[in-house]
């Protein structure tokens, strides 16, 4: 019987979720290199799918079947299985919905949907959650799905993982994938696939990499079938069981995310300007440095301001971690960085650059974030700029729930990126009336040990653990302020700290830390 116990962060963690024993978050330790790393150290052997033989596959390499439903049947789809999908098509994905429509047709129940992320376009799955075709979701739950989960309507507990945590869960067998369905902008009949060409081009397919290697059965779905060989093969056909042609797998206008617009908000531009100046004044911006900035409006504006400063001071980066956009591509093409190491492409310039420029390199959660790798890239990034919904006085932050307790966002690579040498949260000090700096975050997603700087339009707060950063920006003219002071100022503006939302006692989702432990629990909202 599952019970809630407090983990070392003082947050409730169930001992069991969806029938699986859970390890509570156990904080940090110093490793032999003096680095602050997660204390949890799992043992044993990596999971692996059953041995296959090429003798069971067509010698001439044609693995096509007539449709998705047939592919699912041939994969042996049955009640209670786990189906994984990836989110490279973002809000333009048509495949994940089609899978569960087909599963419903087949009369299958209690499936676990294991997407690398979900989007509002996936609200189609609500009816399959209602009817019991989908038992629960382990992956980010955005918009309507988050709302559904928050209201406690899902049959199982939601499990939210970072991109790296998803790779970890696949590798250590926490989530055995029965069937991986990989939507592929271009593929050949053997199952080689890529994301750089085709109407639904999305750049790369890194989020499907683990799925292709570890799932029992792998289906590639495409609307742009080319004769063998499909080059480059970002997904290797040697892992693929079946290939399905669909008329359309994505809506190109929505694959290119709307978030690649630079913000017009004067306050967010001010925040971006502060972040860029901080990176320069703290001495991070120097020849050979590296940074990561997402595709949110503030992060893009930061990249543009930083670019101006780099040109001004003749500084060149060694690499930039994407989410790539036109703006990062321009930096690559103008010689301001040697490489873009790209986890997902957000616009057509990103896709084109990845296709044409060998220095625009596709990466995966394995290279960048995975806990069971022999290292990963996240810690090698000099500075990363991220968002958050809330942050507390100890610099712990929330990225999945709003202050009213509703689950509305996924973790993405956010937790993994916290291991950068300088983690900067660029956030407005309040949204509408809701303060962002709070006494206790609604849901803890990132421990304060790893969050170094909070940049708001009302000033910059540096984590007292980072005395080095505090010293480095002394006399810079930047508005460095204690986090408590910014909090008090905002509370004066908004009319006091918000009341705690009343939440029910029953968990609706758990939040995993990068190592697979449970860092916090999301509870049902009373509405």
């Amino acid at each position, binding site marked *: 019987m599952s019970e809630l116990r407090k983990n070392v962060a003082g947050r409730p963690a169930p001992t069991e979720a969806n029938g699986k024993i859970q390890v509570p978050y156990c904080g940090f330790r110093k490793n032999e290199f003096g680095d602050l790393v997660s204390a949890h150290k799992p043992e044993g052997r990596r999971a692996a799918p059953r041995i296959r033989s090429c003798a069971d596959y067509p010698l001439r390499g044609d693995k096509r079947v007539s449709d998705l439903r047939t592919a699912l049947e041939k994969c042996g789809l049955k009640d209670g299985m786990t189906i994984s999908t990836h989110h490279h098509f973002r809000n333009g994905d048509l495949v994940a919905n089609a899978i569960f429509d087909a599963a419903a047709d087949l009369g299958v129940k209690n499936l676990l949907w294991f997407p690398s992320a979900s989007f509002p376009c996936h609200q189609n799955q609500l009816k399959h959650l209602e009817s019991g075709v989908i038992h629960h979701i382990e992956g980010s739950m955005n918009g309507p799905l988050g709302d559904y989960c928050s209201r406690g309507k899902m049959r199982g507990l939601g499990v939210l993982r970072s991109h790296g945590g998803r790779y970890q869960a696949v590798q250590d067998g926490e989530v055995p994938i029965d069937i991986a369905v990989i939507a592929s902008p271009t593929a050949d009949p053997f199952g080689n696939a890529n994301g750089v060409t085709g109407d639904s081009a999305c750049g790369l397919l890194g989020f499907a990499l683990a799925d292709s290697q570890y799932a029992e059965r792998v289906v590639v779905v495409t609307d742009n079938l080319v004769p063998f060989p499909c080059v480059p093969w970002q997904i290797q056909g040697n892992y693929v069981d079946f290939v399905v042609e669909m008329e359309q797998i994505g809506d190109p206008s929505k694959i290119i995310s709307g978030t690649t617009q630079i913000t017009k908000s004067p306050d967010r531009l001010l925040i971006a300007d502060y972040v860029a100046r901080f990176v320069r004044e703290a001495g991070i911006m120097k020849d050979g440095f590296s940074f990561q900035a997402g595709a949110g409006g503030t992060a893009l504006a930061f990249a543009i301001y930083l670019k101006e400063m780099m040109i001004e001071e003749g500084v060149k980066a060694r690499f930039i971690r994407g989410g790539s956009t036109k703006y990062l591509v321009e930096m690559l093409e103008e010689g301001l960085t040697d490489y873009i190491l790209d986890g997902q492409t957000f616009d057509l310039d990103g896709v084109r650059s990845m296709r044409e420029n060998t220095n625009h390199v596709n990466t995966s959660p394995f290279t960048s974030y995975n806990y069971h790798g022999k290292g990963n890239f996240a810690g090698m990034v000099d500075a990363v700029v991220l968002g958050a919904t809330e942050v507390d006085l100890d610099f712990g932050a929330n990225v999945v729930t709003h202050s009213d307790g509703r689950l509305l966002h996924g973790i993405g690579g956010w937790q993994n990126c916290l291991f950068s040498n300088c983690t900067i949260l660029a956030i407005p000090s309040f949204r509408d009336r809701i303060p962002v700096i709070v006494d206790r975050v609604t849901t803890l997603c990132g421990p304060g040990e790893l969050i170094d700087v909070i940049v708001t339009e009302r000033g910059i707060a540096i984590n007292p653990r980072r005395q080095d950063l505090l010293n480095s920006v002394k006399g810079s003219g930047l508005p460095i302020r204690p986090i408590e002071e910014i909090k008090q100022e905002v509370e004066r503006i908004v009319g006091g700290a918000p*009341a705690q939302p009343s939440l029910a006692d029953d968990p609706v989702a758990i939040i995993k830390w990068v190592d697979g432990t449970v860092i916090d629990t999301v509870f049902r909202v009373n509405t």
Partner: protein
Amino acid sequence: MGHTAEAGRRGAKIRSDCWVSFESGVTGGIAIDLESKVASMYGESIRALAEETMRSLGIEHASLRIEDAGALPFVLAARIETAAKRALPDLERSHLPERIDQSRGKTTRDRLRRSRLYLPGNEPKFAPNAGLHEPDAIILDLEDSVAHAEKDAARIVVRNALRSVDFYGAERMVRINPIPDGYADLDSIIPENVHVVLIPKCESASQVNGVADRIDRIRAAHGFEGEIFLMPIVETALGIERAYEIATASPTVIALTIGLEDYTADIGAPRTSEGRESQWARSAVVNAARAAGVAPIDSVFSDVADMDRLRLNALESKGLGFEGMGCIHPRQVRVVHEAFAPTEMELEKAKRIVAAFEKAEATGSGVVSLGSKMIDPPVVKRALRTVRLAGQSRTSAGGSADE
């Protein structure tokens, strides 16, 4: 049925504002029907504020429906008061939010006025962060940015903002409506520590004097100190002709500014980005202001996306003799400040004055002098500011707020 009225805004795109409907009653006390995006966090606080507002207004029985999209308390109070006053036009009492300490700062005649950032009077969501962009002044606008039917609402929003919003040291300006409509604006905002009143469509000395007299009467009634200055806006052919007369009408006039949108319409010329059609009028304003011993301040540049042309425009303004200009977007502030930054020569002079001041301080002398010339304290203060701001301009718009 009681008297009913509505105020505020609602709809999918409205944020940080609210909509209120009010119905007066004769029994039953105050009934509040609240729908709020932030209900779980601030629902109780909103109800308490609505009840407090009703008490202040002296209303015992009424029904309120509030649809809130995250409005700040000063906005909620303003919308509730507006709805009540629209329903009950004879209502004389007001609900005055608590005055914050930061709203009490005074101004001086010689302040830098390179930029004034316009805030539409009925659009409260920009107010709390306006000062963070470090304009020399913020200007709460009751005139052209406010629809005629919302003048009453804007007056209350602006009054509340003056009491409860921290503008981070920016000078506090209000643009009233043209005289005579503007008199009602003065009654509502002058008690709230306004530093500079902008008089639009100004065409005569008597309008300036009318405003100055009205301000004096309000001050006498409320008994408060502190300077309140005037900045007439000349924006008609007649106004330009009478610019000197207007600039000298009252000793409280500290600056004269020009409104080019109205002026070009008045003379029948299309407004171009090169501005040849208004060159003469701009120079006439500079000349009249200098002759009157007040600061000439330029109009606004309306293409908020074009920073390069804004820079050229501001440099040209400075070249014509203007000391500042209006900004309609926070992003314009930095560009304007850079353009109006002191030249090397101006900076040198300021540094010499600062050095003389420091010497006088060190020797305990109360008198600052440069060569044989005594330097007045306001000039010293301004020189200190010039030097400090010049130091800041290298790191752009950041740095500390005004002292």
